[in-house]
């Protein structure tokens, strides 16, 4: 079988008033003569296509040819394409001429004689995308192809799948293309967040438990301070049993994450609830068309099976994927098994209406080792074998773990409406999660008569659904002759949750006491307005505000059944109400080509935990103020993937004030409120990509966080003790290399990638520091024809590290032991080296269903 790669980069010879580029909605692949290309040969044809207001291609001409067969194949195909039309500054569709480079590539054959029999047209896989407004370099027509074995006319097409995003709200507004860095091993899609500077992800709960996020001096828990979105679906759970704002993104299939937006700080008025430290949105897409299956197996019986399907000819935003993961886990009590199915369709309903439907279902179960006391580990008295490995990866309570069931769906329509563009989405999610944790052993169950404690195990359950919708109206216009863009958004959301916490008997996990049982209804109505103005070509201004309204209905089902007046019902309802306004603004000055300076500031808010509200209370918000100044430099050269490179360098310094912070309470197994806090820091980040060969992303971040006392003045931002556990200095580097080699006349694909995280010693309570952490994950893949073989090594250096540390009182010496009331260091062990072998099979699909 041979491959013919065609690479499409959409380039628009756009008049200045074009606001929205045309994007291909339906594509047809070129039919190429079978013997047109020699093995390993590349050809490029650049076409100019006239796309009318309906998105139809009216005229195509060759701007730079590659020979008659290639030119004709490209013209014949592109003439049949259908686009989402370009739009002018008023949102009206308009005629444009698009410049479309199409790249053909044929890999080297193993047995040329085997490839002569099949020339049926096929759809290929999209590996690369290019969409740029930079000038196209001249490409000289290539010499005629030498006689060669017939080429299967397979095409790699890529469509530009979304309108250009609004300008970033701040330097710390990251639009991260995953691209080649997908080769760096990651446990889950959430780990892609580490491509943004200063993000550290750890997990004390096991494979399937949402990770804890450290960002900008915040211990953001499992989402309390970071807003999570899955392509428009909010993931944070208000008043979750496991903590207000708990967000589980573990289930997202990494292969389907095309890019992600990470906003560090509350600077964009579109950012919603929980955007205290920032916002992360996973945007889905699948560039590789056709069917692909990836199977890996490795140490500790770890199995990972992923399958993706991208129907050829449809937008990259149309795909389906499944993922199954299981394993025994390292050490004791860390086995897991989970599966996810996701699918999305994007297409045109009528001429100007684009629709998107997204669905996902996931289920999983996992065991968790929980945390260990440092003194027990050092004394080697943990209930495991005496060797260092067994002790480090031991557990006190083998009943810890959890399960997750989740279903999500979204429907979205985008259309031109009046002078602007309008989008409307509706979503629904259902979740049922149970987490069994035991942080304190035997501390809380003190009984009369000196009876042995029954145990502090907690079963935290959250069950319920979320319904919501988002409306967005964007109007490009002019103000006093300057370009402007006004955006108005409306979000409505209702959560209905049953949250329960039960104390469990040690080992038997039979519930003996209800810690809490709440029926929570939270309605959230938010609106935001954003105004962007470009008064001069070198100055961009943004100002806006977000207003949020929350109504809480709360039923405590665990009240006592008697009081001083006798019997009473153990159920009591309460209501609360809260509203807040959050202004946000930024200014960006382009001082040199590619170099801009930016300042941004904004207020954000975290809604109240319903469990902490009283009846009739004006629900307080945890308000955050953040400001930053920074610089960004971007250099892009070349328009063709094969010869392009880009460099983005940025850095910023920031300050953040939080009015009511939350810290982890091990007795409750969830976060509890503390006072105000101050944070400040800075970061630097650079990403360099060179054609399809190299992709390097590196960052260094520094942060400080303080908890001032009630008597400390507001202006003293470094008053009070430091917030423990938060990384002060950390660095992350991701590097991916891809190359093709000729070995014995055969083209072989080789890819290597490494990702390394370095965390300097973190401040811990009692004036101590943690050990430094250096963890490196790497992969090496060799591909030939339709399959790739590889090896993945997580924690390549086999570092023994404590991925998360706590300081609190606990007693794991048994039900009769006297509890320690002095806080002791506890830690969750980081994973040891894990090596897996991988096999990836790329299957092309045929239009012709006959055999």
């Amino acid at each position: 079988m041979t491959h013919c790669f065609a690479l499409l980069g959409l380039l628009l010879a756009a008049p200045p008033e074009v606001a929205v580029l045309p994007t291909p909605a339906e594509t047809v692949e070129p039919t190429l003569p079978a013997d047109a290309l020699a093995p390993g040969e590349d050809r490029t044809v650049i076409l100019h296509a006239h796309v009318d207001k309906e998105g139809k291609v009216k005229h195509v001409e060759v701007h730079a040819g590659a020979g008659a067969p290639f030119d004709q194949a490209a013209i014949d195909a592109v003439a049949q394409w259908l686009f989402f039309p370009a739009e002018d500054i008023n949102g009206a569709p308009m005629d444009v001429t698009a410049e479309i480079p199409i790249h053909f590539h044929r890999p080297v054959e193993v047995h040329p004689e085997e490839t002569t029999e099949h020339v049926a047209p096929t759809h290929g896989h999209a590996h690369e995308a290019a969409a740029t407004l930079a000038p196209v370099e001249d490409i000289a027509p290539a010499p005629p192809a030498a006689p060669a074995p017939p080429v299967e006319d397979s095409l790699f097409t890529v469509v530009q799948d979304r309108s250009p995003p609004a300008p970033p709200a701040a330097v710390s507004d990251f639009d991260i293309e995953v691209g080649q860095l997908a080769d760096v091993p990651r446990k889950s899609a959430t780990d892609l967040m580490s491509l943004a500077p200063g993000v550290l992800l750890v997990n004390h709960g096991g494979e399937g438990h949402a990770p804890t996020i450290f960002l900008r001096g915040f211990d953001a828990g499992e989402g309390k301070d970071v807003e999570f979105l899955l392509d428009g679906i909010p993931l944070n759970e208000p008043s979750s049993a496991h903590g207000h704002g708990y967000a589980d993104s573990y289930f997202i299939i990494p292969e389907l994450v095309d890019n992600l937006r990470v906003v560090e700080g509350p600077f964009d008025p579109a950012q919603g609830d929980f955007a205290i430290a920032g916002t992360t949105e996973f945007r889905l897409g699948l560039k590789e068309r056709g069917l692909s299956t990836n199977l890996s197996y490795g140490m500790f019986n770890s199995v990972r099976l992923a399958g993706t399907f991208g129907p050829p000819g449809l937008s990259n935003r149309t795909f389906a994927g499944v993922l199954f993961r299981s394993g025994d886990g390292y050490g004791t009590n860390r086995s897991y098994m989970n599966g996810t199915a996701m699918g999305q369709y994007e297409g045109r309903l009528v001429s100007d209406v684009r629709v998107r439907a997204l669905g996902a279902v996931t289920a999983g179960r996992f065991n968790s080792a929980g945390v260990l006391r440092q003194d027990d580990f050092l004394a080697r008295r943990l209930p495991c074998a005496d060797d260092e490995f067994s002790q480090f990866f031991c557990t006190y309570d083998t009943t810890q773990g959890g399960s997750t069931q989740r279903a999500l769906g979204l429907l979205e329509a985008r259309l031109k409406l009046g002078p602007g563009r309008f989008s409307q989405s509706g979503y629904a999610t259902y979740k049922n999660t149970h987490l069994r944790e035991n942080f304190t052993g035997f501390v809380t169950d003190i009984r009369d008569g000196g009876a042995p404690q029954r145990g502090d195990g907690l079963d935290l359950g959250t069950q319920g659904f979320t319904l919501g919708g988002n409306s967005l109206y964007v109007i490009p216009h002019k103000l006093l002759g300057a370009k402007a863009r006004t955006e108005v958004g409306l979000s409505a959301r209702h959560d209905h949750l049953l949250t329960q916490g039960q104390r469990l008997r040690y080992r038997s996990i039979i519930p003996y006491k209800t810690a809490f049982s709440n029926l929570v209804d939270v309605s959230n109505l938010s609106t935001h307005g954003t105004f962007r103005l470009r008064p001069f070509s070198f100055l961009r201004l943004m100002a806006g505000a977000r207003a949020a309204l929350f109504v809480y209905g709360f039923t405590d089902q665990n009240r006592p059944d008697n009081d001083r007046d006798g019997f009473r019902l153990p159920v009591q309802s309460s209501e609360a109400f809260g509203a807040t306004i959050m202004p946000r603004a930024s200014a960006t000055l382009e001082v040199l080509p590619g170099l801009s300076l930016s300042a941004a500031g904004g207020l954000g808010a975290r809604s109240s935990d319903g469990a902490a509200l009283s009846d009739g209370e004006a629900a307080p918000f945890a308000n955050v103020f953040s400001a930053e100044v920074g610089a960004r430099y971007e250099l892009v050269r070349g328009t063709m993937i094969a010869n392009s490179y880009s460099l983005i360098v940025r850095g910023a310094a920031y300050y953040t004030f939080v009015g009511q912070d939350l810290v982890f309470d091990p007795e409750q197994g969830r976060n509890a409120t503390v006072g105000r806090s101050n944070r400040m820091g800075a970061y630097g980040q650079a990403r360099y990509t060179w054609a399809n060969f190299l992709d390097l992303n590196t960052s260094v971040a520094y942060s400080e966080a303080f908890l001032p006392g009630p008597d400390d003045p507001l202006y003293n931002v470094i008053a009070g003790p430091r917030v423990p556990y938060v990384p002060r200095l950390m660095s992350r580097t991701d590097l991916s290399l891809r190359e093709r080699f000729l070995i014995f006349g055969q083209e072989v694909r080789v890819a290597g990638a490494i990702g390394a995280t370095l965390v300097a010693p973190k401040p811990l309570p009692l004036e101590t520091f943690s050990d430094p952490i250096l963890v490196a994950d790497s992969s090496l893949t060799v591909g030939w024809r339709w399959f790739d073989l590889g090896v993945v090594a997580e924690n390549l250096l086999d570092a023994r590290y404590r991925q998360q540390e706590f300081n609190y009182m606990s007693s794991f010496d048994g039900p009769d032991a006297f509890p320690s009331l002095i806080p002791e260091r506890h830690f969750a062990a980081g994973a040891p080296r894990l090596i897996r072998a991988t096999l990836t099979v790329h299957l092309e699909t045929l239009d012709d269903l006959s055999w």
Partner: protein
Amino acid sequence: MSLDRCLLWCGLLLPLLVACEAGTGGKAVNFDMTLRPVAGPDDDDIGHFVNDRGWGITLDEAYLCLGPIYLWENPPNLSVLAGRSPLDTLSSWLVPRAHAHAGDVFFAGGQVFGEYREQVVLDALGPGLDLGTVEGVEGRAQTFSMELSFPLGQTPGRAALDGHQAWLSGVARQGEQEVRFAAGFDFLGSQLDRTIAEIPVDAAVTDFGRFDISVRPSAFFRGADFGQIVTAPDDEGRVRLTPEDQPHVQMRRGLQRHSSYDARWRAP
């Protein structure tokens, strides 16, 4: 240089680039703890004394099962009231302060600055015990608490307690009256019942100091009137006191009374 060594140096140097201190406050310390019986100021000896009811008491046996022991941050509740100035009192009249607690927590001791998590059987007529080095946190402790606990299976000396949490025996004399007595005490109710809380102390807990706890057996007998015994003596003429007997009630209170105990902090 090996990779591990290189990483270690990197790890050691990095915090120096940032700051020398974690800045999180507090300091973990270790100090010694002792438990010794002492005589009262008017006592002849630890085991020979006259109580406030005029009974001369000679102890034959005095055993207590004690532990765990905690050093607390907060002062006793009563001392907060006692320490008020007239201005404070006037202020509290004018603007009364609301108080609330969880109902099941009698004394909120605040942070714990030191703890001994074992239990020991103290021979209150013996030389005392060195409890060894214990862990703590630097700070000023203003109270400590001890638990009169039920001896667990491995606790040395538990046989001397005759199955109780405290055991006292001896002879009480007043005039011609002589009462040979023995009493076992159990504190099996709530934690409040078995915990001797709010024992005042002023201990600036630091590294390598010593916390000496003294137990005054004569204080156990305050208010005990051995003429009010309803239980008949046994064949050997010894009265096994029960909760029906006034001395038993008073001795039980004495064991729970914080003034029966004291402590001093000795700086290194």
